[in-house]
């Protein structure tokens, strides 16, 4: 039967060119081959229309190139690395390339999402094809101009030459290229010939960042815009009963207070007045549903762990039998709290809803989905919605949720004015969409010095690990294996947080493996390698990781860290984890002084395929590791009567420079397609640290944050 949905990957369908009125060539393209066949890019750059293409390359008549990058930048560096891939195949000097953020087509493109570390993985083929096609088009134009065969022309650094030694700059042939057919069969470069990919490229927004130019959502202003501070129910489970805004309205600059749903919006001429206005509101909040406490969550999650008949997520072999026949059984329960994202730039969004259109500007990881939700919310045609993305002061998953953009649109729709909703830090932490509290119970059977059974139960608030995770290591490596999950529905909002689920699951499993190794009496790294040796890549298609790649990654980490061969006084902890298609292994080096452990260094080995931009890639890994250590050490967030107990950095502790160890990153050298880096560095960090603490002190840590657990046991730790 013919597959109706099969899409032919035709360059004609995903690339269009046109001459620019201002001189030069504009190439519109779409990575995901979903563009309309008839689409034509505009001839006037000011009319860039993202309806049909989600990215553009402009080649000016001096040969300089501007790439309008389609992916929003949250700090993972894709605004630099994705254009590097195009520029590589286009074969232009990187210094001649500038990069701008593209606007959004809300309708046609699904994957304009920064999250899941997947941007590079999805873009790799399409970006190379696009660059190569553009290059071939320019070569064809030059060949036609010279009257020679294109195969007799060569390109390097934006210069096309022929056999007679004549040369054209790309800019010399842009007009001709605009009139040519888009070539169909272009060849891609051999990775050995890469001149841009694999070389360090500084963040393309560097100068603007370090000189403080407006880049972020919070920096955006429009004429007559009102700054809005929103009072939301202080506890999950409450709603507004009545309010008195008279005092708030006496504050200079406050222009209006309105209610929308269960929230109140204070409109003002500046942020400070809006924030003061919010504080001056007298609101009576009443309970609408249960006001939950952390203790309740604790009990509910324990109940789930103790119960039978959870959702079976993967089952291999017969774990019952494995446990019945075991020489030894180990069981542990690991616990983690809720966590707020705490993006450095608090949530904010601009909206101007008018009769003609809906103009939205701000930092958002899911522009297309959010635009659709806004269209539904305020009952507008999606065609009316025009959403511009700004640079984002961090995402970590929080900006996948458009709640703040919806608020802005709803308020603007009510007051018929341009507004910008600005969260204070307190608003941001108290109205979160948190990483849910989770517990894992892991039980393993050991027989004749081998791990013969493995049973993992997950109990989480609101939702459970996504479908692929049960197929991560050690699935496939242990014959009798079972993963089950269950959840407790809470009225506290939860969602994705950098490396969802694996950010804590990796700690639980990696600490557990250390205990298993001890029980079997082998080196913990050896235990992993032995288990990986049981897995033949490709044999079981459902298995997510590659045993071979993981093995190589582990070997690189142990070699670079001098595993178990370090100076006296250094205690090491190991963890390895696959997530987001990338394999990572980490070794924490810890020293003890006066009974206090201190992290000296973290050695990281990463297999993410081809490293497009090494400096950017290292930055992601350093950040991921430090983030993972910081939250494992300090991240603590609890609820009392539905209220978050911490709302600012005076009581909510984030890792700071003195606690951050040196992170040394090494990449496995291969020529496989690149995979993501924004998240995979984080998951192993907590486990590697816990294992190092165990090596140094003998203490087994089962609960995050570690500082709290260690304090309760009257030890202190600094990192």
């Amino acid at each position, binding site marked *: 039967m013919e597959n109706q949905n099969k899409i032919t990957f035709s360059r004609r369908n995903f690339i269009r060119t046109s001459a620019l009125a201002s001189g030069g060539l504009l190439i519109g393209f779409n990575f995901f081959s979903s563009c309309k066949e008839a689409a034509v890019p505009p001839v006037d750059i000011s009319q860039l229309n993202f309806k049909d293409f989600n990215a553009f390359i402009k080649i000016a008549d001096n040969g300089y190139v501007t790439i309008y990058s389609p992916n929003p*930048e*949250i*700090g993972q*560096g894709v605004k630099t690395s994705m254009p590097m891939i195009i520029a590589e195949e286009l074969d232009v000097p990187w210094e001649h390339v500038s990069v701008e953020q593209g606007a959004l087509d809300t309708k046609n493109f699904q994957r304009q999402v920064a999250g899941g570390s997947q941007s590079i993985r999805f873009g790799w083929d399409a970006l190379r094809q696009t660059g190569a096609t553009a290059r071939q088009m320019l070569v064809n134009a030059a060949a036609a101009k010279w009257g020679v065969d294109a195969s007799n022309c060569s390109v390097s650094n934006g210069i096309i030459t022929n056999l007679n030694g004549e040369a054209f700059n790309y800019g010399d042939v842009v007009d001709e290229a605009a009139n040519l057919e888009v070539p169909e069969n272009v060849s891609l470069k051999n990775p050995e010939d890469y001149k841009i990919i694999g070389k*360090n490229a*500084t*963040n393309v927004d*560097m*100068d603007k*960042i*370090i*000189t*403080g*130019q*407006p*880049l*972020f959502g*919070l*920096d955006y*202003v429009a004429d007559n815009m009102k*700054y809005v501070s929103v009072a939301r129910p202080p506890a999950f489970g409450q709603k507004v009963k009545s309010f008195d805004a008279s005092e708030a309205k006496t504050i*200079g*600059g406050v222009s209006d207070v309105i209610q929308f749903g269960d929230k109140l919006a204070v409109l003002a001429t*500046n*942020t*400070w*007045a809006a924030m003061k206005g919010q504080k001056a509101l007298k609101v009576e909040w009443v309970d609408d549903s249960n006001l939950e406490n952390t203790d309740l969550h604790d009990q509910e999650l324990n109940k789930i762990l103790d119960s039978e008949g959870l959702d079976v997520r993967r089952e291999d072999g017969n774990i019952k039998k494995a446990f019945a026949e075991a020489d030894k059984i180990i069981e542990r329960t690991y616990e983690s709290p809720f966590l707020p994202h*705490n*993006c*450095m*730039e*608090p949530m904010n969004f601009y909206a101007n809803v008018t009769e003609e259109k809906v103009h939205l500007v701000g930092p958002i990881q899911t522009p297309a989905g959010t635009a659709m939700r806004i269209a539904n919310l305020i009952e507008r045609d999606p065609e009316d919605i025009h959403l511009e993305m700004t*640079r*984002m*002061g*961090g*995402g*970590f998953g929080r900006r996948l949720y458009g709640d703040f953009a919806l608020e802005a649109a709803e308020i603007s729709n009510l007051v018929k004015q341009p507004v910008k909703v600005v969260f*204070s*830090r307190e608003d941001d932490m108290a109205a979160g969409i948190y990483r849910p509290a989770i517990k894992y119970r892991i039980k393993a059977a050991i027989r004749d010095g081998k791990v013969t059974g493995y049973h993992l139960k997950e109990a989480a608030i609101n939702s459970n690990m996504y479908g692929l995770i049960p197929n991560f290591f050690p699935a496939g490596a242990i014959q009798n294996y079972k993963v089950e999950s269950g959840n407790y529905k809470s009225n506290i909002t939860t969602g994705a947080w950098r490396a969802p689920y694996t950010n804590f699951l990796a700690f639980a499993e990696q600490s557990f493996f250390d205990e298993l190794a001890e029980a079997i009496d082998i080196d913990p790294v050896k235990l992993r390698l032995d288990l990986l040796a049981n897995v033949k890549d490709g044999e079981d298609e459902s298995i997510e990781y590659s045993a071979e790649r993981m093995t190589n990654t582990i070997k690189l980490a142990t070699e670079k860290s001098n595993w178990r061969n370090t100076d006296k006084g250094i205690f090491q902890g190991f963890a390895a984890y696959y997530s987001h298609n990338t394999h990572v292994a980490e070794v924490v080096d810890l020293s003890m002084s006066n009974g206090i452990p201190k992290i000296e260094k973290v050695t990281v080995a990463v297999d993410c395929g081809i490293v497009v931009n090494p400096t*950017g890639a290292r*930055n*992601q890994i*350093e*950040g*991921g*590791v*430090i*983030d993972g250590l910081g939250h494992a050490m300090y991240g603590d967030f609890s609820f009392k009567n539905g209220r978050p107990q911490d709302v*600012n*950095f*005076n009581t909510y502790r*984030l*890792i*700071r*420079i*003195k606690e*951050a160890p*040196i*992170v040394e990153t090494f990449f496995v050298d291969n020529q496989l397609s690149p995979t993501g880096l924004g998240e995979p560095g984080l998951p192993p960090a907590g486990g590697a640290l816990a294992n190092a603490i165990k090596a140094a002190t003998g203490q087994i840590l089962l609960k995050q944050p570690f500082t709290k657990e260690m304090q309760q046991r009257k030890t202190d730790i600094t990192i």
Partner: protein
Amino acid sequence: MATYNLKINGKSLEVSADSDTPLLWVLRDELKLVGTKYGCGIGQCGACTVHLDGIAVRSCSVTASSLESSNITTIEGLAKEKLHPVQEAWKEIDVPQCGYCQTGQIMTASSFLSRNPNPDQDAIRNAMQGNICRCGTYNRIEKAVALAAKKLS
């Protein structure tokens, strides 16, 4: 609402604000100098750091009305004809990720180095301890401050 005369980045500017308005919001909303960032509003994160007479200060925690006699420098005024050596170092080390905290980091670092031109690692870490980077660029911040110190000497 009252009117104040502030000296910012070498220019005399008249601003009107309520007397309790933190300098941060006068800079951002009134003067559109948005390089100074808001992160916490309570002096905990350092995103809002500016210089008052060369000293790094959290602009969320001082009122504009109290500063009529100070020389205020914001990130927009740090580079003179060319980038400040701290900015140069930030660029060379490729420090930023999301970039949001970085102007505050640079303002803290530049004030620190003007008084402590030869810092060791501990001194750098102590000086930068008040600036949070949620993206975790601390390794690079440390390297960039050390490099800037070299550039300045």
